[in-house]
């Protein structure tokens, strides 16, 4: 399972990645998590299951959906409540929930 986080420069999402990885280890979930700048996303869509977008770049949602949905990748925006707290566990749960559907 692979989760990709996207923000404008891949900078702030990298904080979240670390937290999510910790949360996944705690839960015993095997998952690969990466953060990319928007510009680098296209090149890194292999095997991705879900893309989560930082709330500050919510405006990219449609654009990303266009390239990701044809490949069967689910796309969503992280709520700023979770994002602002750098809540790794919360964001991980969100991704897992999306995948369950």
């Amino acid at each position, binding site marked *: 399972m692979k989760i990709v986080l996207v923000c404008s420069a891949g900078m702030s999402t990298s904080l979240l990645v670390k937290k999510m990885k910790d949360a996944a280890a705690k839960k015993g979930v095997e998952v690969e998590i990466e953060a990319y700048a928007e510009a680098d996303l296209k090149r890194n869509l292999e095997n991705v299951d879900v893309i989560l977008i930082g*709330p500050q770049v919510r405006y990219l949602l449609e654009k990303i959906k266009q390239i990701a949905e044809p490949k069967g990748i689910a796309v969503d925006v992280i709520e700023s409540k979770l994002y602002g707290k750098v809540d790794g566990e919360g964001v991980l749960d969100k991704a897992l929930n999306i995948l369950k559907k």
Partner: protein
Amino acid sequence: MKRIDKVYEKLKEICLRQLKNDGVITGCAAIDLANELNIHRANVSSDLNKMHKDGKIVKIEGKPVLFSIKQDELSKNFNTGEEDAFRKIIGSNLSLKNAVQQAKAAIMYPPHGLHTLILGETGTGKSMFAETMYEYAKEIGRIKTNAPFVAFNCADYANNPQLLMAQLFGVKKGAYTGADKDKIGIVEKADKGILFLDEVHRLPPEGQEMLFYLIDKGMFRHLGETDAQHKVDILIICATTENVESILLKTFTRRIPMVINLPSLKERTYEERFEIIKNFMIDEATIIKNDISITSNALKAFLLYDCPNNIGQLKSDIKLCAAKAYLGFMMNRDREVVIHTEDLPQYIKRGLFKYKEEKDKIDKFAKDDKIMFSIDKMDIIASEDSKSFNFYEALEEKRKSLEKKGINEDDIKLIMNLDIETYLKRYINEAKRYNLEELYKVVDKRIVDIVDNFLNHAGKMLKREFSEKTLYGLSMHVASSIERISSGKKIENHQLDDIKRIYKDEFEVSKELKKLIEREFDIEVPEDEVGFITMFLCLDIKQEKDEEKVSVIVAMHGESTATSIADVSNRLLGENFVVGYNMPLDQKPEIALNNLCDLIKKTNKGKGVLLLVDMGSLVFFGDMVYEKTGIPVKTVEMASTPMVLEAGRKALLNASLEEVYDSALNLSPYIGRIYKDNFEMQNGFKNDVIITACITGEGTALKLKSILEKKLDLKSAGIDIIPLNIEDKREFKRKLQNIKREKNVLAVVSAFDPGDDTLKYISTTDVFDNRKLSSLKAMIDSRDALDTINNMKEIIAENVDIDADRYINAFKEFYLNIAENNVILDNDKIIGLILHLACAIERVLNGGELIRIKNCKSIIENNISKYEMIKTSVKPVNEAFNVTLSDDEYVSIMKIIYSL
């Protein structure tokens, strides 16, 4: 009616008509009566002769023979009983009995009456008395009913003797340059009547000479005439406030046989004073078309206070207080028009200090709690409801009025906290005019001794000296506390916790006084009271140099308004004291401010400056001048000549700036009342507040408040302004700390910089600088955003390896900068930006790899102004961490902000 009676009635009618129209009875011929009555002349003639024979009428031999009614018959018609013009004067049969008898004698004295000199202090009613003499002269037929009464105030032209002479005696054409036609003087205008010369001691020597000539010979010359003389038939009444022993008046009294002394208000009985008060009250009630009541204490104050300008002053004081009471009624404070003690100016209230001595004499006038003066009925109606003059009750009343407005407990405490110091200071200021002897009259000597001992002890313990004022103020305070405790009333001090915390040492020392009082008076003094005592010790009352005076400056729009008001005031004050500054309408405010600054620097004698202004930007100059020069300035707006005059008068008495300010403000019932009401916060405060603080007085703080509210649209932003009236920086800081504990203080607008980094500070001058103000506006608009930013502090501290405090503060500045450029971000973007920028800084600091943005250059080129704005706005962050971000970094910020 028999024919003979008809004839008599007609004769009487004609004679009375003659007297009324011509002032004398010339008599009536038989033929005229015959024509009027349509009776044969011979019959009329025989009736007249019969009546003459019976001694019923007077026969005047001549051609034709005239008849008239007898003199005693006349007085029956005119002096009906005891009533004459003098009866309406209060005290005409008490303190003024002698004066009235003299006046009557002067008028009646044959053949033309006696010239009279009236002596009396300002406001004793000299003019009114002279007018009454004139009325009386008409009544008894000494002068005709249409005879002139001409009043002239010799002080009016005292600075220009030539003009004065011209006014008095008239001018012949060509007498001096500008005298281009003949002009008659008031002496001629008063011919066959009465000439009243007020302030006759101000008559210049030339005038005196001509006046004496007039008195001696009844003749005078026009100005510029050498030979011609004019005869007039006038009765001269002079009046003066001067001592009769003065040289001028000695020459006067030689020529003027009748000297009448009018007693001062002090010399008159309380009965008379009460009658006078009653009369003026009823006059006022008639004017406002409403009954006026006065509380018993206020009436006592009116009966007792020192009223140096006598009845004139009493009248204007009553007018003023009635106006205040009426305003209170209009603004729904009271359900009726009531004059309360607290509405009275200090100097009237002070009358109450004499109450103990005069109690027996005046209690009969103030038997009831409230005395009412009605318009229609002359008698007085009593009613209940009492009020007294007391520090605690003032506080309690304030508290009650706040409670009534539904203000919550926390806000009430806050407001009381802010006010209590002012109350205390006023209290002390009021006390300071008394010497020890007088203090003993109001306060039990035992109390004064205890307080004196205590202050000595406290002085040693705290290594501080206490002024006389503290002794007087604290003694009076303790006296009322003891009274209160003994009567079982509660003492409540809202600041007790703060006092214990902030003034630990003083509080400890104050417990000593508690012990002393408890021992001496066998009562229990609560801790709240110890808190009040502590506050007395902590008020730093500046020792003023008493010999210096507060400077008074009038500044107004227009070419000459200010200087002419200053001029008039100076002439009335008899001293060149008030300074005027004219601000032409087209003068730039900055220039006016500079000029005024220089003027204030020049005029200030170290005791501060009272600035009286009309309107507009001038209202704010006081605070700005203070900001620039450090000279304490108080400002009164909507100034008028009486206000300037009162301020000048007070300042000449070496009063403090505070007192001079109060006296001017008190004279304007409107301003005083408006400020008071506005200052009582109507509904408590919202959580977010901006504080405006002025040393120049309530007016400026309130003006600032309304300007800010309008410019920043604070109402819809849900922000309240707390206007503070402060005296110095320390007091300001104390009050600020108090407010900060309760409320979220967004900004402080003041001439003082409180030096508190957590508060945004805007100087008074900046309020008029739209650029400066827009940063405040941005801050207000960004309040939610700033909350969000604040909440991110912990997250940053937890996740990013940089100084989170410093980062968040820098980020706030960054945010306010972009907000000022009208960029408003939603929470998503703010959170994203905070995290993003924090990571970027961390990476730069750790020498980590930086981001690269594709087509960075072209993005910058296409959005050059946005790029510049971001680059400038982000500076605080760069500076906080001493880093420089790359263009790529700026672009990535732009991408987030502008969704590029």
